[in-house]
């Protein structure tokens, strides 16, 4: 879509058989960025075959409903291949968005990355 070089938006780390993905920019989950972030996340499951994913929200200060949509699709993709998604380090303002939308009960949400890793 854009011809500009893509700034790195995700930091990906393998810890055992779990893939930990950290968002690198605090505003990364807004409408302008969410399309490419979604594609990169889906590709981890569809192309790279990852089945256990942790998303670390430590640097995220904002997310819109479009981002929630991407997370829901990612969660479904993982469930479809018997994988699992865990979210962690979600700031209170962002966590409230998960509460308002009822998505708190759809996602596996943990306080810390360690807690998320131990859940697998």
């Amino acid at each position, binding site marked *: 879509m854009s011809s500009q070089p893509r700034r790195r938006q995700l930091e990906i780390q393998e810890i055992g058989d779990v893939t930990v993905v950290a968002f690198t920019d605090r505003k990364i989950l807004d409408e302008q960025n969410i399309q490419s972030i979604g594609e990169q996340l889906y590709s981890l499951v569809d192309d790279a075959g990852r089945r256990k994913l942790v998303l670390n929200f430590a640097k995220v200060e904002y997310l*819109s409903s479009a981002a929630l949509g991407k997370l829901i699709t990612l969660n479904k993709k993982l469930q479809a291949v018997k994988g699992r998604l865990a979210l962690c380090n979600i700031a209170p303002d962002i966590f409230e968005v998960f509460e308002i939308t009822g998505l708190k009960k759809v996602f596996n949400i943990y306080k810390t990355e360690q807690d998320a890793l131990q859940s697998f």
Partner: protein
Amino acid sequence: MNASASWDGMAWLTGATAAERIIPSVIAEAHRVQQEILELLKQNSFSDRDIFAVKLAVEEAVVNAIRHGNQSDPDKKVRIAYQVTTDAFAIRICDEGCGFDPDAVPDPTQEENLEKPSGRGLLLMRYYMNEVRFLDGGTTVLMFKRRGSS
């Protein structure tokens, strides 16, 4: 300004301090206006929580206008009028689409809708703003937030 329940959004937004921007249906253009608004809120010492609320509600409303209203047609315009005072924030966003019935939008928190990837914008706008009103068959939305309210 008395930010009471009898707020008349239209009258308020035609006041002397209101700003109006007319932009093509392009997300990057909308973001420039959103940045202006956030800067004004900061200058008026709104809290981080208020700024988060306005940012989220405005993003949802603007994206609705561009994507659902104007179908991302860059020839169609979005008109954004907004006002920030020390007490409150108000915005009016108009698109050139066919409109919609906000009451017909399914409740995204219902069990059967919970895992649908879209349909949460209105819920978030209503949660974070004190008032959200749709006019002109859904092509115009007015939103209002008092400072420090949740």
